[in-house]
């Protein structure tokens, strides 16, 4: 990924993230989040994470956000008025968040000294980020989390169906 691509993607990502948080209409907020997730998928492709990028679109942009949009449309949420939209702790929240981002940027950047993340340490192994490499790790070292995640998804699906059913 070269600097030019990074700058363009970063501006678009931050722009759509701000639109998610600040736009008064929930539908436009959700659509901005879809845009942000698709941009993130493109970002992942540039970072040699091919499978994760495709999965980002399949799972997040294609399923989770459709669910969000369904709920917003079923509840028929309209554009909100100014008073309803923002909480009372506007100033303190903004100050806290500015402090947080400054602190994180300092420590993740050059200020920490211990992390030394300025340059990439080594060449990437061949086939990095492809399905073969991912599944090799997934089914050998990570097989227990994999199985537990399957059970978790089953539990979540059953739970969602039970919760959303009309009490007969």
């Amino acid at each position, binding site marked *: 990924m070269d600097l030019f691509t990074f700058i363009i993607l970063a501006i678009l990502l931050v722009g759509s993230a*701000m639109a*998610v948080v600040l736009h008064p209409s929930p539908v436009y907020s959700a659509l901005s989040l879809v845009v942000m997730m698709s941009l993130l998928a493109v970002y992942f492709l540039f970072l040699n994470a091919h499978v994760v990028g495709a999965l980002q679109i399949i799972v997040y942009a294609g399923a989770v956000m459709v669910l969000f949009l369904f709920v917003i449309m079923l509840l028929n949420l309209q554009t909100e008025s100014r008073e*309803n939209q923002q*909480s009372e702790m506007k100033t303190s929240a903004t100050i806290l968040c500015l402090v947080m981002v400054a602190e994180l940027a300092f420590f*993740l950047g050059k200020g920490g000294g211990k992390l030394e993340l300025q340059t990439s340490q080594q060449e990437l192994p061949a086939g*990095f980020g492809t399905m073969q490499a991912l599944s090799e790790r997934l089914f050998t070292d990570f097989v227990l989390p994999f199985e537990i*995640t399957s059970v978790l*998804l089953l539990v979540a699906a059953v739970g*969602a169906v039970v919760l959303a059913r009309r009490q007969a």
Partner: protein
Amino acid sequence: MVPTHYHLILSALLFTIGAMGVLLRRNTIIIFMSVELMLNAVNLSFVALAQHWGSMDGQLIVFFVMAVAAAEAAVGLAIILMVFRTKETVNADELNFMRG
């Protein structure tokens, strides 16, 4: 090749925007979406570090985070629907059942 700390700073920025969304907005669904935004920011930093150290473990963790986030989104939205049925609102300030 962009230095890795650029990716991490971008991830921190997105995470903070998500945190701002959780604190500032009162619509429960938008709060939920801001949480998803924070999860995506964390995914970004995992993938960037996976590329930095040449290890697939970072991408695997992203895989699991996606699965768990999908499960959480399903259950959370079901809860919001249920709450809407009783209280007719999704404004977090008005959802104060246990008081009064």
